[in-house]
Structure formats: structure tokens, C-alpha cells
């Protein structure tokens, strides 16, 4: 898990990466739901930024939270039932 030790990146810089990172997140949660810290570890990205990208995915209908938060307070996220398919093949 990537804890924020320094000032987070500017929000414009974070959302600029959304188009690429949402595809990467989608690829990681295709097989099993994952929490933000798990995604952050896999993508080597700050949890703060994962949260922003997941919010975009949720807003546009490609991801949804699974049930309730776990004992540590984190939700797992999975692809929405009718998630729009990404054309990126990375």
C-alpha cells in the first residue's frame, strides 16, 4: 500500500491519467474484486489516485462496490455487470 508521504499530485495531473489507469484497474478487477490498497500495490500508484480513478469508473458505470466495507474499512470493487468494454488491450 502506497501511503502518501508527500503532497499529492495536482488533481489535474491525476485525472489526466484517468484514461490509461482506468483500463489498468479494469484489467485487475476483471477476475476478482479488489480494495483500493490492493490495487495501489499492484499498480504501484498512490491510494489517493486510485480512489480518484475508481470514482470516475463508478460515475461512468464501469465499476461498483461490493457489499460493505471490510474490517479495515475498505470496500472491494468489481466491474459493473454491464461495464462498457475498454478497447485498450494493454
Amino acid at each position, binding site marked *: 500500500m502506497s501511503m502518501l508521504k508527500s503532497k499529492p499530485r495536482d488533481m*489535474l*495531473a*491525476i*485525472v489526466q491519467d484517468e484514461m490509461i489507469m482506468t483500463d489498468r484497474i479494469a484489467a485487475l478487477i476483471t477476475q476478482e474484486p479488489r*480494495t483500493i490498497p490492493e490495487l495501489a500495490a499492484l499498480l504501484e500508484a498512490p491510494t489517493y489516485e486510485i480512489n480518484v480513478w475508481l470514482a470516475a469508473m463508478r*460515475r461512468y458505470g464501469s465499476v461498483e462496490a461490493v457489499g460493505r466495507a471490510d474490517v*479495515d474499512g475498505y470496500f472491494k470493487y468489481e466491474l459493473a455487470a454491464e461495464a462498457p468494454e475498454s*478497447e485498450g488491450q494493454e
Partner: protein
Amino acid sequence: MKPNNDRPDLDYDVMIVGAGVAGMETAASLGDMGYRVLLVEKHSSIGGKSILLSKVFPTLDCASCIVTPKMAAAAHHPNITPMVFTEVDEIGRNDDGTFKVDLHRKASYVDFDACTGCGQCEVDCTVSVPDEYNYNLVGRRVAHIPFPQAVPKKALIQRRGQAPCTHTCPAGVKPSGFVSLVRAGKYAEAFHMHLADAPLVGSLSRACYAPCEGECSRSDTDGTVHIRAVKRYMVDRYYAEYPEPEYGPVETQRDSRVAIVGSGPGGLTAAFHLARQGHQVTIFEAEPYAGGMLRHGMPRYRMPKEVLDRDILNITALGVKIHTGEKVNSVAELKAMGFDATFVSVGNQVPRIIPLEGRDLPDFEMQDCMSFLRDTNVSDELPDIAGQHMVVLGGGNVALDVARTAIRMDAASVSILCLEPREKMPAHEWEVTEADEEGVQIFAGGSTKRIFTDDAGKPRIEFLKVANLEFTEDGKMKGFATEAGTEQSIPADLVVLAIGLGPSTKPFEDELTLAATGTIKVNAQTLQTSDPTVFAGGDAVLGPSIIVEAMGQGRRAAFYMDRLLRGEALDVPFGDELDVTDKQDVMDEIAEWDLRPQATLPVRPPRERIQSFECYEGVFSETEARTEANRCLNCAQCSQCQECVRVCPADCIDFSMKPEPMQLKVGTVVMSTGYEIMDPSNKELLGFGRLPDVISGPQMDRLLAPTRPFNAVLRPSDGKEPESIAIVLCNGSRDHTVCNPLCCRIGCMYSIKHAQLVMGALPLADVTIYTIDVRAFGKGYEEFYEQSKGMGVEYVKGKVSRIDPLENGNLSLHYEDMLGEGGLQTREHDMVVLTVGFLPNTEPFALYKGSELEADDFQYVREIDPVSEPARTNIEGLFAAGTVNGVRDIPDTVLHAGAAAAQAASYIQGLGGA
């Protein structure tokens, strides 16, 4: 009596500026009285800041339930005209007590009448920006509906001029668009978007000199986005998947017949665009193969002929016929064949020949550059120059093409001899460098004197050092002198002249007006020649140009030829573009960003690449292409990727939309422009903007709203449900450190509302409110306060001085304990909400011209007598409603709006009939 019948000279009885709670309420009151009300709102939805709240205090009613009915009432009232996304520019008072108003409706690029608010454009938009409606907690798309309850619920597209790359492309290609689509992994869409503007996608990906890259904003920081390489990945992928075009001729075919003379980039582009309009297009090409300079002039290592062939299929798939080996000798000939219009794009392929002493010596050969390149590019067998010493005269790109081609043909040596010093050679610097790496010898600053035979009977070329080379202001060579006694010579079995090309326009000199240089004279706007049915473009008009310039002319000519053939006037502008984005705006945005240097393409080493004519430049992988595309800074915000256009079911996107200026006469004006929220990053020690889990009150409202940005109330740093939340009051209100001594009047109840809502959303969470004191002055406020204590909210009387991050991701909050143990204390929380102060909105002062609209001591609009005549300002007939006079809660704002409506109505009545 309908008051509006009394003043038919007025466009509206009342103009209300700002459509928050006060504006809507004032409008509704006046509308109910029968006045014609114009409700102007600069944002694209009415509702103000209140509609973004979660709930309201002290009733905890849903904010939407309170505000939405007011929005609906204002939007649908028969006497109210809401005018959203409109800015008031200037308000002035007329002598008769009415007001004249200059305003403009901003360009939304969406036809609001047609938009159904489906949001599909937003889903498919490829650019994200911070979402101001969620107070920058998350992003939103550039094509967007501001928020779910927006009224009117219409999309708009956020644009900031036109991206420099797109603005500069002479062919009208939109690099910002296809780069954005590649970033989003939409490769086929990227190809089709490019194709719609310029059909030779593959050729451009290989051979374009990419003026777009020269203008890229990123070139001022860590290197231009490698746009051409991104395009190369896109088109290679597409052509691999689609060896043939996916489309055929357009459905609506017309009878009009168009002849195009020459199949270079200009001609092919004109043919493509004309065929897409349904015209019957035939291209006549004198050479055996189509493609013009792309085919005959560009070496294969840069312009693979199979790529060009595939590009040409993009054009012929539309039904365009190409007759190769058919030279056109006159326009009259084409007219006789029944063509209604002609585009002459014969190019610039007549080589300039200079007299050269000794050229007739035995064993010496001299060629022109076009013959040499044509032979090497389209002949079945390459000319045999193995073992020969070759000298190319000239320092331009064509000379470099000849030399670099020859170095791949086993010549004993290849040299370039040019007049210019190396740093002033017309060829691109990178090309000179690559030629140098490949073993081409460059003799820059030399003037040919003669060819002679040495003692061994071998021909040599002798040249002198150029002593003085003069250039015109635009960089063209004007004249030169040589330095006597500086003769030197090099072996020269073969000399190729690459010292300039002239236009191939001779066949048309009796029919079309030519310039002294031989280029065809045209109308600069339409490209129409002296013969109205004949248009011309490309190098035949421009002289030597780059591919995209020729393609741009083909596209432009096609536009006007289409109009001519339809019988439409030609005096209309071509293209409808915004001004270029100010790069400084972009630079300011990215000032603190980390650098991401340009990705470099793999290039074969020089010794390896000269062994064949294969392309020596590699291709990005998919990851590399997307990563490089992601370096694009979205200079213009909207990338013009056209995805919104493609997916909009109502066909309501209109990029040609312009701001609509208006001038109106109204009876009275009510200012209800609201307040501003203080930026808590001004309180540096509290960490807002530096610590993600220190958020502002408005952000907390968004986290609590049903339309919240996250799936639950989560802390922003890692999406965890917070367990211990601190709410800190009075940040920027009652605070002389930010020059705001005023109590905000809202913060205490606002924070108690947050506390109660958090306890409802997160029943196990601890909530602590840090306060100087709690001011519960309104009806039901004290009960609301007591209720929160009963729910378990802890109150700490203490001023918070600093918030620090902890190793475990939580926050350490330092405060002065005023009631408990006293002294400086520290507590740990996992999220902190800063209840921020409110500031005056000073916009009204700038809008009113004439005598000064007066402010009070705190820069709110001054009410001249708040007790007996609320809402009256010092300008007779101009009123101020709601928080523009000072911060109020919603009930007080509604009351004040009622007062403003009464004042305005009274004033209108006093104006009497016209």
C-alpha cells in the same frame, strides 16, 4: 393590470443576475406578480451553491427537495426566462430610470434545444478535468452535465481555444483529437477521426515533418509529444486489422463530374473530400503510378510504397477513379470530356538545371534529382551506381533524399555540395545529422566551378569556398560570392542536381493565369483560378511545400468546389476554428508537475540501416503509444476527438457555435450573485491541499450527498471509511489572519449538520467538533445543537493551530484546549473537515458602469438602509438580493429575496408607461 403592457419598449421588466436561491426566489415572486423576468446565470444550471448541498439545517431536509422545486418553478414559470451559461458584461442606467444591459450567451457547443441530457457524450469523452461541482475531489469529463439535478439538464463542452498542434496543421488534422483517442485506447476511432480530415493517414505517419510537434506546448518543458509516432502506432494497427477500407461510396451520389489533374497529396485529398460529398471524381495522373511526390520523390525507407497504396485505397473506396499514364494537356480537353469542374494539382516536379562546365566529359554523368528519385522509387530495378562517386548539388530536403538513397545503393562515395553553411542548409537539421551518420559527406558552403578529369582520367568536381551568402528576410538565398584561391575537388562520376524544382504547369499557361515563377494564380480564399470552374492547389500554387500544406489546399479547394457544384456562393469562410490556446495558461497549470520526457522510437544504427531501403525507424508498443499520448496536456481542454459527435443520439453537438452577444433594455436589475467560499489552503498549517484527508466543509457536503463522488463516505487518501472525524470551525471567518473578521453565520449549524449526517452514515465513527463557541441564534438551532450532543458528538472548545500527517496515514491535530486540561493538546483523527469562511462576491462592482455601486466595509454590496429598505443599493433601481449583501442561511436568503422582489416591483411601477 399586466405591468409589462405599460412598457413595451422594455425587453424585460426585470433582469436578475445570478440564479441561486435568492435569484430564483426573487424571480418567482416577480413572475407571480406578472412581471417579465430575465434570470441570467453564468453557469449552465440554475440552483447556485445550495443545490450542491447534501441536506439543510436544522431540519435535515434533503437539499434537492428544498432547492429543486425552486429551480423547476424558475425554469417553467411563464413569466420567467432563464438564460443560463450567460455572462453579463455591462449594466448602465438610462436617463429614464431603465437599464441597458450588455450580455453574451457563452458557446456551450451543444444545442440545448436538442440535447436530451442523456449524458452519453460525457461517458465517451476522452478528456478529464477536476470536477468543480464536487469541489475538485474527483474528475469529470470535458463534455459534461454539471450535476445530476442540473436545470436545464443539458450537456456542454468545455473549450479553451484550439490546441496549438491542431491550430497549426495546414491539412486540418486534429492531433489533439486522435492523440486523446489513442490515450483512451480507442484506436479505430482515432483512425476514423483522422481520416475524416485527411485521408493519407499512413503516409503522414511516416513522412510528415509534423509542424504540430513544433507547436506542442510540451516542447517548452520536457519535449514535444511525439505525435507522429503515436499516429504511426494508430495507423499501423488499423491497417493491419483492415487491409481494405471498411466503407464504400457514399449513399447519395451526385451527377456532377470533377477532374483532378495530378495524384499527389493535394489531388488525392481533394478527390477524397469531393467523393464524400457524392461527386463523381476522376484523377488523371501522367505517371504510371498514383501518389505524386509521395510515390516518386520520397525514398522508400521513409515512405514505404505499400503504405501509400493502402492510403490510396481510402480514396478509391469512395468510388474515385484514377487514370494513370494519362497526361492532361489542357483544361479545355477536360471540359470537352464533360467534367463540370477541375482541380489542378500537378505539383512541382520540373527540375532546375544549371550549366556546368565539363558536363560533357566522357565517363561523367549528370542527372536531375527527380529522374534519380523516380528511377529508384518506382522502377523494377534500381539504377546501378555501385562503385561510383556521386555528388549531389543542393542542401535541401530533396538533396538529402537523393544522397541517402544513393548511400543505400553501394556507391563508392556520396557527397552533398551546397552553397549554404551547414547551419543554414534548408534541409531539416535532423536529416542532415542522419545523413552524416550514414556516411554522406557534406561539403557545405561550396560553389561548383567545373567538372574536370584528373591525371588518372577520372572525373572530379571542383568547387570554391563561398565567402558571402546573402539571405532575404524570410530566409531565402539572395546571392553569394566566392573566395578566389580556395578551389578544392572531389571525385564525381555522377552529379545529381537537387537545386530546386519548378511547377509542372506549362500545359496550362494559355488557359490559366500563372505567376512569374510559373505557379498558378488563385484566389487565396477559394483557390479558384482565372477560370471559375478550375481550382488549383498544392505545389502548383505554393511552390515547394510540405505534404500537409498540399493536403490542406486539396481540402480547401474541395470545400469550395463542392459549393460551386451545388450552385452555392463561394464567399463563405473555410473552417470555423477558435483562436489558438494561450500556452501560458497551460504552462501555469502544469508548473508543479513532474517532468515526463518524450519517449524515443527505436532507430536502427546507421551501418545497419544503409544496407536496405527498409524503414529504420521503429514503432511504439501499445503501452508506449498510450503513455506518450498521455503526455498530451489537453491544452484546449476539449481535444476535438469528436467522440461526443459520434455518440450523441440527438446529433446536438455543434463545434461551430459562437458566443451570442445581446443588448437589452430592462426596467430594473436585481443582483443576486451570491458569495464566494474561502480557499482553506490559505491556512497553510492546516494542511488543506497538502493532506488529502483534510477537506473543506463543501467537500464534506458532497461526500454526504446522495450524488456523492464515492460509493460511501470515504476518506480521500485511500478510500477507507473514516472512524474518527474532526470538524474544525471558523477557518477563515472571525479570522484576522485572512482579513475576514466576520462570523460566517452558517458554519456552526452547517458543521453540526455534518456531524449528525456522518453519525447516520457511519454509526461507529467518532465525531469531534473543535469550536471557539457555538452560535445557535436561529429558530430551532439550539435544539439542533443539543440534539447533536445527544447523538454523541463531542465538542472541544479549542482553537486548532496545526494538522500533521502520521505514519499510519492518520492525522495529528494540534489545538489549544480552552476548557478541559488546558494548554496545547494533540489528538489523532483519520479525517478532518475544515468549516470555511465565506467571502463577498465582488463581481457586481465591475458590472455596473456609471456612478459607483457602493460596497460596505467588508466588500459586500452595501444596502443603504437594511432595516427599512432592505435590498436597496445606492443606485436607484438596482437592487441586491440574498448573500450578495452578506452571508445568510437559506431561510434568511428567501426572506431577503422577497424584500428585493417587493422593492423591484415598486420601482417598476414607479417607472410608469413608456
